């Protein structure tokens, strides 16, 4: 019973608390990378960008909200922050760009979009320059779809999930959309986007490619746990705690991160 409680509590803590730390560290790292790329004019502007690489910086000054968008929308990429769907144009380019982001775990990057963001200005910084979009209201199932942007117009559709009822913020089951619009002046989209993506990169999909790594990390965790129990008997609790706790915590962290890959990516 206690073991079960610890595992569940750890997992919840990972999703809601530690995940936030991890995400904000990833954001910092990506921010550094992206800043360097912008300065060196090597930030990606089109073609096929490796998944996980930063592609755009979103900033809503009115909310004090800033996120770096990474390429790709699989569960793993979205651990680090919002992700850009790879078969759409990049943010800031003419056309419709789709971004996915989590709203209740791992730093809740898109939670801000669901609450009072409508009408605010959002600046988008990419390798092509800086543009200011206007955020629209939340679009739920059944709401009319906006018309496709014309000419050099651009739209960023932010896709995330929200829940209803009393536990709404903890039960984000429904996919919702927030559109940010730029009437004209968007950058030209170079050719060479992917025209199809895998099922793991669609909304609410999970990424099962992580299974082998997960199995391995769980195995190592089990061995470490056995090791700790044996060591406690031989060397006493204090010394075991000193050596064992960091190892076990690190492994548990890794395993629960990998398990998150198997959860719906907008959670």
């Amino acid at each position, binding site marked *: 019973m206690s073991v079960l409680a610890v595992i569940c509590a750890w997992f919840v803590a990972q999703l809601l608390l530690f995940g936030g730390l991890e995400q904000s560290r990833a954001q910092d790292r990506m921010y550094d990378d992206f800043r360097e790329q912008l300065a060196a004019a090597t930030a990606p502007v089109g073609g096929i960008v490796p998944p996980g690489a930063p592609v755009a910086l979103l900033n809503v000054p009115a909310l004090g909200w800033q996120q770096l968008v990474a390429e790709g929308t699989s569960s793993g990429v979205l651990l680090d922050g919002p992700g850009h769907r790879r078969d759409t144009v990049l943010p800031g380019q003419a056309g419709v760009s789709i971004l996915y982001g989590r709203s209740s775990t791992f730093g809740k990057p898109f939670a801000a979009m669901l609450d009072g963001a409508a009408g605010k200005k959002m600046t988008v910084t990419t390798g092509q320059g800086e543009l200011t979009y206007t955020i629209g209201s939340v679009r739920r199932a059944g709401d009319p779809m906006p*018309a496709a942007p014309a000419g050099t117009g651009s739209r960023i559709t932010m896709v995330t999930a929200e829940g209803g009822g009393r*536990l709404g913020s903890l039960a984000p*089951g429904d996919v919702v959309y927030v559109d940010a619009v730029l009437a004209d002046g968007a950058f030209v989209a170079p050719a060479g986007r992917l025209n199809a993506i895998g099922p793991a990169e669609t909304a609410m999909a999970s990424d099962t490619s992580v299974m082998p790594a997960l199995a391995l990390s769980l195995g190592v965790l089990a061995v470490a746990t056995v090791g700790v129990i044996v060591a406690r008997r031989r060397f006493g609790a204090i010394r075991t705690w000193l050596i064992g706790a960091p190892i076990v915590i690190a492994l548990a962290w890794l395993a629960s991160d990998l398990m998150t890959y198997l959860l719906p990516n907008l959670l």
Partner: protein
Amino acid sequence: MSILRPREIASLLLAGLLVVLMVTGNSSSATAASTSAQVSSAADGGAFSASKTITRVVKGLDGADDQVDSRSFTLNVDHTVNLRGRERVGISWSGAHPSGARAADPYGENGLNQEYPVVIMQCRGIDNPSLPAAQQLRPETCWTTSRQQRSQATDPSLAVWMHDAKASDEDRQLKSGLRDLPAECSDAATDATHTTPFVAASGKVYAACSGSTMPPEAAVGAAFPPAELSAYSDANGSGSVNFEVRSATENESLGCSNTTPCSIVAVPIMGISCDDDDYQCRREGRFEAGSSNFANEGVVPSVSPQYWWSASNWDNRVTAPLTFGLPPDACAVLDKRAPTAFYGSELMNQASLQWAPAYCLNQKRFKFQHNRIGDDPAYVLVENGQAPAAFVSGTREIEDKTTRIGYAPTAVTGFAVGFVIDEPNNAGERTQLNLNARLIAKLLTQSYTGSSRGQQRPGIEKNPLSLNLDPEFIALNPGLDRIDREAAATVLSLSESSDVIKSLTAYLESDPEAKRFISGTPDPWGMVVNPSYKALKLPTSEFPLRDTFVPTSSLECYIQNPAPYFSQLASPVNSITKIASAVLDAWPNVQTKCDRPNAGDPFKVGRVERQGIGTRFMLGIVSLGDAERYGLRTAALQTSSNVSPSSQFTSAADRRFVAPSTESLTAAVKLAKDKGSRSAFDLTQPMLRKQPAAYPGTMVVYTTAKLRGLDKGEAKKVSEFIKIATNEGQTPGSGNGQLPDGYLPIRKTGATAALYASAQRVAKLIAEQREPAAPATPKPSKPAAAAQPPVASAPAEVAPAAAAPGSTPTDSVVATDATVATAAQSSGPAGVLLPLLIGLAVLAGLGGPVTRLVHTWRSR
């Protein structure tokens, strides 16, 4: 002393178990969640309907507007998404002006001499003013096969477009449309000229003012006949047509594809709106509503389809946006991995076309490829280990007794007799045809003589010339013309060996009338079988060409080219798809046309011309999948008869004819008996005859593969294919990985439950590669439930919200008239996971101390 205490081991095991449960539970429920999104976003085939008020306004002599006519025009298109090249969509409309001067052939320039028709065309682009100009449709992106349909030069007194009230001043000039005409146009300075150029997908502009300035696909004798037409509305202003769409594969200049959206444009012609009192412009039609125009006389220009591009006609248009599926070569282009080739049955053609992208675009699956060859050679490849799997439709003998081959039911489909037959007197197409086995036997055994040359054949001189002259056919299908045709003396069939022919000939063999006829007994009207085919042994998987009779002729061509006449009539082809396109084009494969390039050259014989609309009569053996894709009409086959085989009859009374449909295929498949994993189901023609509601052409296609000795990797792929094909592959729809029309879905419950169970069992056996000790005992087939519940598990692939699978982002699909609603998409696990985890943690956290308390209390 043990290293671990039992309690510690137990808690470790428990923790491990919990983690495993969480992992597997989450991943499986996540898949289930994505399913619901797919179903909701691809609910129907994209049926389209839109209404518009269309008007004709003529300025009165006093200068005031005078509304001549106003109608509410409604256009319906039965499906518009994921179309493939040459697919036909059903279009119907109401509220148009009743048409007059009906032409026999409404297609291309032949349909121009009609009054008040509805011009239906395929145009590149979408009718949405908010899109960039390059993505919008306009007259310049609408396909026509001749320049007469787009560019006109005439005497200024007849140039009604110059008086169009809605046209810009520029378009009312003597010369309008394209400027700087090329020299080929040879435009006379005194003529009123309007040139509507064609802008190809590549951006190239074709002046379209003469035959030589049209795009290459519009050349004389091009590969495909015109698809655009001026369709006829009845006295109520309603009408319907089957419209053939062209993809970039067929028409590169038009260039419609999965990335280039196109639309169907219907322009109801109700007369040009005039801004002055020009007599020609103000005229009404001179033909009565409902009249025909066999003589192809000229019509009143203001109400003719020739000026569909003129502003007031063009403003009345209604457009239905289309989306196209991936081209057939998508997998070769998008996926560089080596394919795993499955060989065999052409019946799977349309299904594998839609299934393949669901494999090659998913890197977690293998790259599936279907190579169409005969069932027998495909099976031999599997047996020899040269191919991992084959599609076949019946049990085969095993050469090597040590081989073990499993049969997994993969699709329920079948064959049909496709036809294109026109009603006499320009009354449109015949929609229903009744055929019994004896008529098919007469066609296949070449017992109709075709022409006076065939009548020289000793033994069958007295036989009718063609099917439509046979009293038996007339009794079953009254009201058709009695013109003899060589094409109606035969049914276009397969030259290769195929299970389709085997099944068809088994149908003939099981029918008493057909059997007696082939054995040599004349039919009740005295028609006899061609002696070359007398007592032909049936069933056979390859229908032979036995007649070698060479007629004599006084014509130079036939003297130079002596050939067996009946083989020229039959001229079977090597693939079922070719038969389907021949029927689609009404182009018989009869090889009796004499031709020579110049007067002095020697003659050669070749394929006859396409049949003219109005007098078409052609039959072919097609697959149900092709028939549905191309919108071919299929004959109803006789399943039972209370009439004595030797008595004459004059009507279809006391006979039952069954057309292919979901119900008749279901009735047939209910009869199938499981014969174990190493054999096809038992579904013979004598069994089918006992159920008069069952369609006799029903066939089950099996994936066959070795149960031992197959490479492990290949075995896994075949097993994966069977599982995917019989689960997500059975969701009806037009998207990638879905089951096209013409196939009966195999489901866990209902009539196909036994097929489903067998497929899952064989998939497992193939994956294991451990041949079963003894053949599995046949299970009695369960009584099938009447209603078929929807498929339990649907594709795991998620379509982007509200978009058709296979197309790029959602939001780019915009409808013209209706706003698209955001699709609902939700995920069960995402909704419950966190509360569940917290709840569990709290419960377990409380439970631990409580149990300990209870324990201490007890031990006290």
